[in-house]
């Protein structure tokens, strides 16, 4: 009886051993080839049409990969990689994918020679540990007080992006914003919360050079009543998260009204309630009232009479930022308002008209621990791209402030590490030597692609660079590729630097991911699509 025995779900696709490994290599190569051209100052943009029909133009590695729909599990893990990099340091999302793919591919030759992945992984891990030491050794500390130098670094990091032309402006913005939200704990812990306290606001129109950091908060809101004051110096601010109108109870209530008087009384109670909460507020003599909920016409009337400006329907995050700059506490019941809840830290409240819309500015704060970055630009697409780049710049600035160490950019550090590892590989015994050396060589992919993207003669350039590094590794480690001209230059002269934390993270994630994928020898996919 030779009838087949079905042990497993036959709909599933299975790949074994060699087949699985080859599949992984192909998938990974495909991913890296997509974003290869997005590296360096001569990077090209990608235009992506997503399922919703909107187009995205970007050269940010993570943003591109996020939008691409992939099916191969290994490709998915590459995309995850880029995301993890973005979450952690916010930069180097392209290079991490390119590097991981190159490292993985460098191991292919060993698998063909039937070297067990275990040895390759072990060699890679050894190389990773050494590489980190080497990067540490080549890193240069930077003085945070010298603003010019810090600016230069940020500039070199975002030089590849669209806003390169307005580079210095964006760098100023990023650094300003980061320094504003930088808080040092009593026990020396630094906290920089860009996500919450450095808000980017985009207003289409105007010129890119009009972008600026507002040391305070900007809201896309107008006063609720036209007669309210629009400019207030040193305002007393009250923040609420309850509505200033009559609201029904949470429970289902029903009122049986049997006579006419009761109806009038009911309406009166509602009015009295609004009046009462307004009086609670007015008692504290505020100049400005913000609430997350609505404000009834009646309440507006009371406020106008007392010369109080009122804004409604703020977002919780906006309210939090205002609380942070003004020192006010957000109150949810008006009868619990106290003097200490009033914020006085803000210097100027003003409503300005930009284009067709009104914007509220809260500025000149005594201790601005939150800020808004105002972006102007010709169209929404451009603004979105600027925002993505600015986020990168903000992350770079944050990384520098948290860990003020630099390494030479332009592929110089990769070349230096590659050089040092190659040298070291000679002292490694056994099966580990070859994979170790292969990893060292695969690091050269970064300078190579930099060269490729600017149309230089890669082979010639790379050999020259390698020779330079080999001739005097301790002196020449700053030599890299000028991504604009395609020549070899000293990064010290060119002023292209990367942050230490980004480079370390790139090495760690790419090598570890390559190791994880190398360990796979069976792929079973049950996708029923």
């Amino acid at each position, binding site marked *: 009886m030779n009838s087949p025995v079905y042990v497993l779900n036959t709909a599933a696709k299975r790949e074994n051993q060699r087949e699985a490994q080859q599949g992984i290599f192909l998938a990974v190569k495909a991913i890296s080839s997509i974003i290869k051209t997005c590296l360096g100052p001569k990077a090209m943009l990608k235009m992506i049409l997503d399922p919703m029909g909107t187009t995205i133009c970007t050269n940010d590695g993570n943003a591109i990969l996020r939008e691409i729909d992939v099916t191969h599990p290994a490709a998915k893990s590459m995309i995850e990689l880029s995301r993890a990099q973005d979450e952690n340091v916010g930069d180097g999302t392209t290079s991490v994918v390119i590097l991981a793919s190159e490292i993985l591919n460098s191991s292919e030759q060993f698998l063909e020679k039937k070297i067990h992945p275990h040895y390759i992984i072990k060699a890679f891990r050894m190389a990773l540990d050494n590489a980190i030491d080497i990067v540490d050794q080549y890193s240069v500390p930077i003085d945070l007080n010298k603003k010019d130098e810090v600016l230069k670094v940020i500039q070199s990091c975002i030089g590849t992006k669209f806003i390169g032309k307005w580079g210095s402006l964006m760098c100023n913005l990023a650094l300003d914003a980061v320094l504003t939200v930088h808080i040092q704990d009593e026990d020396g812990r630094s906290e920089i919360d860009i996500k919450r306290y450095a808000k980017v606001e985009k207003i289409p129109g105007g010129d890119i050079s009009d972008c600026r950091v507002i040391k305070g908060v900007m809201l896309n809101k107008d006063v609720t009543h036209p007669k309210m004051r629009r400019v207030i110096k040193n305002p007393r601010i009250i923040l609420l998260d309850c509505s200033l109108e009559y609201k029904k109870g949470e429970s289902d209530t029903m009122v049986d009204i049997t006579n006419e008087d009761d109806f009038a009384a009911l309406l009166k109670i509602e009015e009295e309630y609004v009046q009462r909460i307004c009086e609670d507020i007015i008692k504290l003599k505020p100049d400005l009232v913000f609430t997350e909920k609505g404000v009834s016409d009646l309440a507006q009337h009371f406020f106008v009479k007392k010369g109080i400006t009122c804004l409604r329907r703020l977002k919780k995050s906006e309210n*939090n930022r205002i609380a942070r700059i003004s020192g006010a506490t957000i109150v949810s019941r008006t009868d619990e308002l106290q003097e200490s809840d009033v914020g006085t830290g803000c210097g100027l409240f003003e409503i300005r008209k930009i284009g067709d819309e009104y914007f509220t500015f809260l500025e000149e704060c005594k201790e601005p621990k939150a800020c808004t970055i105002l972006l102007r630009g010709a169209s929404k697409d451009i603004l979105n791209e600027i925002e993505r780049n600015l986020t990168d710049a903000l992350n770079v600035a944050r990384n520098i402030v948290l860990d003020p160490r630099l390494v030479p950019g332009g592929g110089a550090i990769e070349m230096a590490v590659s050089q040092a590892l190659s040298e070291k590989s000679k002292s490694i015994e056994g099966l580990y030597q070859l994979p170790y050396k292969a990893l060292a060589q695969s690091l050269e992919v970064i300078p190579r692609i930099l060269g490729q993207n600017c149309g230089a003669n890669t082979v010639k350039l790379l050999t020259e660079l390698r020779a330079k590094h080999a001739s005097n590794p301790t002196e020449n480690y700053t030599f890299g590729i000028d991504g604009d001209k395609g020549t070899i230059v000293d990064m010290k002269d060119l002023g292209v630097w990367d942050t230490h934390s980004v480079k370390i993270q790139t090495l760690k994630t790419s090598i570890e991911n390559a190791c994880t994928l190398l360990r796979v020898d069976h792929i079973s996919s049950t996708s029923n699509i």
Partner: protein
Amino acid sequence: MSNKVLMIDGDRISGQDVRNQNVTAVTAIANIVKTSFGPIGLDKMLVDNIGDVTITNDGATILKMLEVEHPAAKVLVQLADLQDQEVGDGTTSVVILAAELLKRANELVQRKIHPTVIISGYRIACQEAIKYINEELAIKVDTLPKDFIVNTAKTSMSSKTINDDSDFFSKMVVEAINRVKTIDYKGDAKYPVNSINILKAHGKSAKESILVEGYALNCTVAAEGMPKRVQNAKIAFLDFNLAKTKMKLGQKVVVTNVNDLEAIRDRENDIIKERIQLIIKSGANVVLTTKGIDDLCLKYFVEAGCMAVRRCKKEDLKRIAKACGGTVLITLANLDGEESFDPTALGTADQVSQDRVADDELIVVKNSNKKAASIILRGANSLMLDEMERSIHDSLCIVKRALESGTIVPGGGAVESALSIYLDNVAATMGSRKQLAISEFAESLLVIPKQLAVNAALDATDLVAKLRSYHHVAQTDSTKKSYAHSGLDLFAGKVKNNVEAGVLEPAVAKVKCIKFATEAAITILRIDDMITLTPKQAQGDDHAGHGH
């Protein structure tokens, strides 16, 4: 044919055919997992029908995700699951062993030996094997140097992705498990693995994983204004909503006096306010709840300098409550029909703080009486982190077993080879047909060292023969007892003393593995008829409602 006679709507296979089929199925399953076995085993990448990717080396996880369809193969999947629950590790070896036992039994049946004879032979062999492990092979941990436990942890991770950093992780695992050590009422030390919380965060490298003293929660404080660090914390554990009181669905209040309406609204606000004041008055300065906290209520906590965390996981909350000596409250109501907050329900901790890890913030509850630990894993991406979590969990289980049972055995195929020699001798004393079954059992055990060698691309035949000769000497020559510790060294391709090399496994794990594998093999072996009914066809629309 036969199904027509029996009026069965389906297929029926019986006798040798079904045995052959079962063995084929079981072998197929074993073939899938066997390459992931041992320190040089590789991982599997599995994609489920939603498209989620899992990369794993854990036998139980692989089998669970494979969507096995054959009934006999399903027995094996359950077997792996059982081993996972009972021991936590050794899931791959149990599957390989069961498949091998079955394969050999089937050969015996083909030589016209009745399955029941084989079954009783296997039973005897299994009992003898367990007895031998417990009496001869198991080593009391007291006689070993202190670092044995680290070595046990290391052995269990050797096949996993964290192998390269096993020095680092084994120390972490042992430290974590020692931290949660408790003594139960009988005076035995217990190591609840559940008290160790494993959290995952993207980024950095595996080596930057940290062990946190105390329990870490993947939550943040509810409001910005709250303190981020509370010393000498008194913690209230709540399992109810701190929001404006609302009647349950479908209840209506009918008001006749209009002034009452206002009173109802006020009361709604006040009820929760009073509750919060009860909590704060009891001295609590940290409030953890599984449900939400209304913005309205946050303010009271902010004003009282109280740290409130909402949407904690219930299991987490229970564990913290246990570690801090508090009680999880589901209501504030007391027997008198009033509401009160009993200060004895508060837990105490040295410090509760919100710490930043990667892009996330964690709440860490620290306690000096050391009853909780958390491991925060770092790694390149979530696939890797998931696999690391599984590995750490397996390792924790193994260390726990080793510490609780107090006996360990050398790994690397040492036990299996010793047993195979011993059982061969036992078989020789049997004067019945069972002899054959027992000697096949002995032979089957060798699949473990063989597979280890094969995965490491070594000459299995040669190595296993060498290994057996060492064990033979150990069992016959009383002066060379220490040869019983010989196992494989897969990197050097040699036989070595695995107790000295620190390749150790808890004896319980081995015993359970052999027991479960034998039981599973016997279960499948007893089958001599398989009836598969054709699944009822979904009836067409026009036939709907008409039964036949």
